[in-house]
């Protein structure tokens, strides 16, 4: 299992209820395919940074889940086949989590080393002024 984040944008021609229903439908697909949904985040109707299929708004929804690559492939296939979904993006997060863990350790190690060497740490406010 890997951790993924998937965002999709639904067409602004939908009503709020219709978009909620669409989200439920995709939640159902994730559950059915054996994915573990961690979080659903509805951002609601948002302005797009550029026009997509002549639309300048859309309903953003973020899924966070534990899933296998097959599920993502299936989910994306369904996004493609659904006309109301105008854009989607899946990002694998478990590698990023690992990198973040390493970064955390590195920062801790560094601050310990600095404390030992007698280098005083400057607060963010001090550096940025």
């Amino acid at each position, binding site marked *: 299992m890997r951790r993924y984040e998937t965002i999709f944008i639904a067409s602004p021609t939908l009503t709020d209820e219709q978009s909620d229903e669409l989200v439920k439908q995709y939640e159902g697909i994730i559950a059915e395919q054996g994915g573990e949904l961690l979080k659903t985040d509805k951002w609601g109707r948002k302005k797009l940074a550029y026009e997509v299929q002549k639309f300048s708004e859309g309903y953003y929804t973020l899924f966070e889940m534990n899933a296998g690559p097959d599920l993502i492939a299936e989910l994306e296939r369904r996004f493609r086949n659904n006309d109301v979904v105008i854009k*989607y*993006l899946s990002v694998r997060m478990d590698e990023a989590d690992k990198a973040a863990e390493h*970064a955390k350790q590195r920062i801790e190690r560094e601050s310990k080393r600095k404390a030992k060497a007698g280098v005083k740490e400057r607060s*963010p406010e001090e550096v940025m*002024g």
Partner: protein
Amino acid sequence: MKRRADAKKGKPKKKKAFGGRRAKFCKFCVEKALTIDYKDVKTLQAFTPERGKVLPRRTSGVCAAHQRSLVEAIKRARNIALLPFATD
């Protein structure tokens, strides 16, 4: 701003480093950021001025490692229409 106000209060004058300009620093290192999130539009916008291009490292002072993850985040944000590819 605050710093300039302090300087006027007649502290002993220091020799000017960095040719009188203030030193550059990596914002993400200072904040001890672990990841740069592509969903954090506010932060990313600070590094994509008017035209929507990525601010070069020589201007922003971001360190190489963080610039790499910053660029990655900006590209993801563009893909999902959170940031523009280009504006004129």
